[in-house]
């Protein structure tokens, strides 16, 4: 859902952002949204990040090809990813007071 908001910011910053957005063929709103999202996405991480739905268990999970058959090579990749990835299952804790 989009909302409208008003912020007082330095004109020079806004002008720079507008120019950069134009250069990237994007709207200023989209450019600002992306910059904010970047800032909220977290620190750099060399470790892969795998976002999972709470309660999802990858034990016995299998990767499927486009015909719905089990793809063993892809399943191996998935299980490796599950073993090494940083998983922020408890991210919701961030919102606790």
């Amino acid at each position, binding site marked *: 859902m989009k909302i409208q908001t008003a912020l007082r910011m330095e004109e020079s910053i806004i002008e720079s952002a507008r120019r950069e957005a134009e250069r990237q063929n994007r709207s200023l709103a989209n450019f600002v949204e992306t910059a904010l999202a970047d800032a909220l996405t977290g620190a750099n991480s060399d470790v*892969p990040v795998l976002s999972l739905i709470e309660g999802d268990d990858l034990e016995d999970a299998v990767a499927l090809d486009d015909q719905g058959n089990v793809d063993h090579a892809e399943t191996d990749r*998935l299980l490796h990813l599950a073993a090494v990835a940083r998983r922020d299952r408890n991210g*919701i804790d961030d919102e606790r007071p």
Partner: protein
Amino acid sequence: MTWQRGSFIDCFFPFAEHPARPGPMRHIAYLQTMVRLRRGELRALVMLTTTSPRMIQAIPEGLSVKISRANSVAMGMKNAFTIDVHRLALLPPAKEWFPDMERPHFIIAMADERLRDAITKRYDAMRTMIPSPAVRLGPSVT
């Protein structure tokens, strides 16, 4: 509607900090594969794509695939972008996460075999760079 490996699809990719909540804005994601969990539920394993220089800079060396503007346009998209092979999400195939999943234009573009191979090679490179902790190397027990 079909879920096809190698497709680029619109997705409310979650912030890592809030993995169970759809992100606030659409991102084009790359569908690596569908996954079936033990209880039979399906999930889509998607990789983040980004146009943000800051996010691109944060990707570890060797774990990104850059798509030039020309190649992006050839696939039916507009701008150059980068696939972040090390930022993934396993998401239910539901409208809450994939808002266009019931629409005809759900699949924005398809990667060709060459690009799919390049992505899979980077994904495999990650396995070499970050070995699984389940593999124990050390003196054997006799």
